[in-house]
């Protein structure tokens, strides 16, 4: 071993060293850090970067995932270059394959320790997976494709965050792990999910508790796995190794198996039941007033039917609105048993919340459209209009056909009713 293999010791500063040399050395140290760790960290965090690009609305959500495509070849090329150019054996590029192995577990344990929280707080930890799946593929939430795609996205993000710890820190000790996972990532999570991601949910104390609880275990795992694989593993005998591998496999599979089993056995069925219940609750209410406009020999009456309440709560406690498509309304206005006008109205679809991406604006928007007005127009003769007694309410008989849509369920639906409405304003034509 030559002298150059020894770790670089801090050189005593010479009295004659010029003051300008210090900033220059600091700059060199920074650029060296960037080359050794900074760029690799950024490249490895491309799945998280992709998510953030979409969440912060820098680019459309699915365009954000191009960041991973850009990193696909750039990362291995960078690793190959650093391995050929670097003279520092502690540089992460030399250990990336081992770090990749270590990084397989912290993010999985992050979910394993959230399984008890599902029973304690009814926190569905795989619900954000479906949001990720929808964001990356466009497949609707509440179905297998979005769940599987989202689980993959979540895994990639968790893996890259775990890799970030091993790349960013030279010493993979408990203090650094707690700083990275328990302080930094938890704080980021506590901000990002409620402010940018969790639309329709009201994360409270349980959310924050689970956040810090799970990241704490993530930190412990990030420290424990290298110890297990580098120090303990070589001392184990064949039987103990088999048991260890089996244990690691069980830990790795558990959160996915649990989430998929819950989704298959309970979530999808419960969600469908919740939506069918919401379908039965929703109704049409006629507005209390109608407006008459006379043009030539035609009298036109304008009135509203209010469709609602559209709000319902999903299996994962998200507040959503029922959709209604191909709405077709027919009816008639009557007074004293005489038909005054024939009515019709139509709407291809009612406004939804798909475009409301800001969780802060979500609930006000939901409140606005919880009861949505459908415009109905009635046409009758001017003679019939002349005979209307303004002091007597008109009877509005209506029937509506539509297709109701929830997260999982789509069903044709019919609503009908009779209401009394006052003719409050007449406009001569």
């Amino acid at each position, binding site marked *: 071993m030559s002298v150059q293999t020894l770790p670089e010791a801090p050189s005593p500063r010479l009295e004659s060293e010029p003051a300008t040399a210090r900033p220059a050395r600091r700059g060199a140290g920074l650029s060296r850090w960037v080359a050794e760790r900074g760029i690799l960290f950024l490249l490895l965090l491309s799945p998280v970067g992709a998510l953030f690009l979409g969440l912060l609305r820098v680019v459309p959500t699915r365009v954000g995932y*191009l960041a991973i*495509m850009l990193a*696909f070849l750039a990362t*291995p090329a960078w690793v190959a270059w650093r391995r050929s150019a670097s003279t520092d054996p502690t540089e992460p590029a030399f250990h990336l394959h081992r770090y*990749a*192995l270590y990084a397989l577990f912290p993010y999985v344990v992050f979910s394993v320790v959230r399984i008890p929280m599902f029973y304690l707080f009814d926190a569905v930890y795989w619900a954000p997976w479906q949001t990720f799946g929808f964001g990356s593929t*466009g497949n609707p939430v509440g179905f297998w494709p979005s769940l599987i795609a989202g689980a993959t996205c979540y895994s990639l993000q968790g893996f890259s965050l775990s890799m970030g710890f091993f790349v960013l820190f030279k010493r993979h000790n408990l203090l650094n792990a707690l700083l990275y996972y328990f302080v930094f990532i938890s704080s980021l999570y506590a901000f990002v999910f409620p402010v940018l991601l969790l639309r329709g949910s009201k994360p409270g104390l349980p959310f924050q508790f689970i956040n810090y609880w799970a990241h704490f275990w993530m930190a412990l795992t990030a420290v424990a796995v290298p110890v297990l694989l580098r120090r303990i593993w070589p001392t184990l005998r064949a039987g103990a190794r088999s048991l260890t591998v089996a244990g690691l496999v069980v830990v790795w599979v558990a959160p996915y198996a649990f989430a998929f089993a819950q989704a298959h056995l309970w979530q999808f069925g419960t969600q469908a039941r919740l939506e069918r219940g919401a379908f039965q609750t929703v109704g049409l209410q006629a507005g209390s007033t109608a407006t008459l406009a006379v043009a030539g020999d035609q009298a036109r009456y304008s009135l509203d039917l209010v469709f609602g309440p559209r709000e319902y709560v999903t299996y994962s406690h998200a507040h959503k609105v029922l959709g209604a498509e191909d709405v077709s309304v027919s009816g008639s206005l009557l007074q004293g048993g005489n038909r005054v006008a024939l009515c019709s109205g139509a709407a291809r679809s009612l406004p939804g919340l798909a475009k409301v991406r800001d969780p802060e604006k979500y609930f006000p928007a939901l409140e606005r459209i919880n009861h949505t007005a459908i415009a109905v127009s009635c046409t009758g003769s001017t003679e019939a209009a002349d005979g209307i007694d303004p002091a007597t309410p008109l009877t509005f008989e209506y029937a509506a056909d539509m297709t109701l849509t929830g997260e999982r369920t789509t069903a044709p639906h019919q609503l009908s009713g009779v209401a009394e409405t006052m003719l409050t304003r007449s406009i001569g034509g």
Partner: protein
Amino acid sequence: MTTTSHLPAGPRPRTGVLLLFLQVPLAAVVGGYLLDVVSLPVASFAVFVSSAAFPAWVSHRTAVSKDPSEPVHHLHRYAVLALGLVTVCTVAVAAASAVAGVGSSGLWRGLGAELSGEPSSGSWALLAGVVVCTLVATCTVTSAQVLFGGGLGVGGRRSPGWPTASATSSTRSSARLGHERATMGAPTAQGVVAVSTASRSPRTWGGGAETYS
């Protein structure tokens, strides 16, 4: 004139894995766009998952490989060269399209629209399409260099034992630091032969398996 003719050896298993990784973007586009087996966003998950495993594989191979001619040691050079070539071609195609109306951005836009879900007439779809096409082309050209030797005829691929700049620095650093790749610079038997032929002939390719003069 004497001809030393050896048939080019097929890609070694380790090169095969590297090639497999490099083909993932192309496979995603073929499966998700051209053949429409799954949707393109779903197919692109193959790229996403590979993006986690690919650097780890490169790191692993460069750590355990004792053969300095193994393509994984030169991946950065191959990738940069491929990207340069693809960029020039892309700019040329774009310029031809803009100036002479030759070709069109239809493929880029179609690909980008399906991937991003944005309207094909918009700039996001165009950007997405250009990125995907560039990635596929760069990976394909890199694959060609991995398969047939780097350099694309510009300088040619160095034969085993003929230390490249990177191999030299690796060897130097390995020797100096007692690093895990300390044996990397040691020439293999094949490498020794190739050195002798390389010194006679400037045209050596196929990892030194075939030389001709």
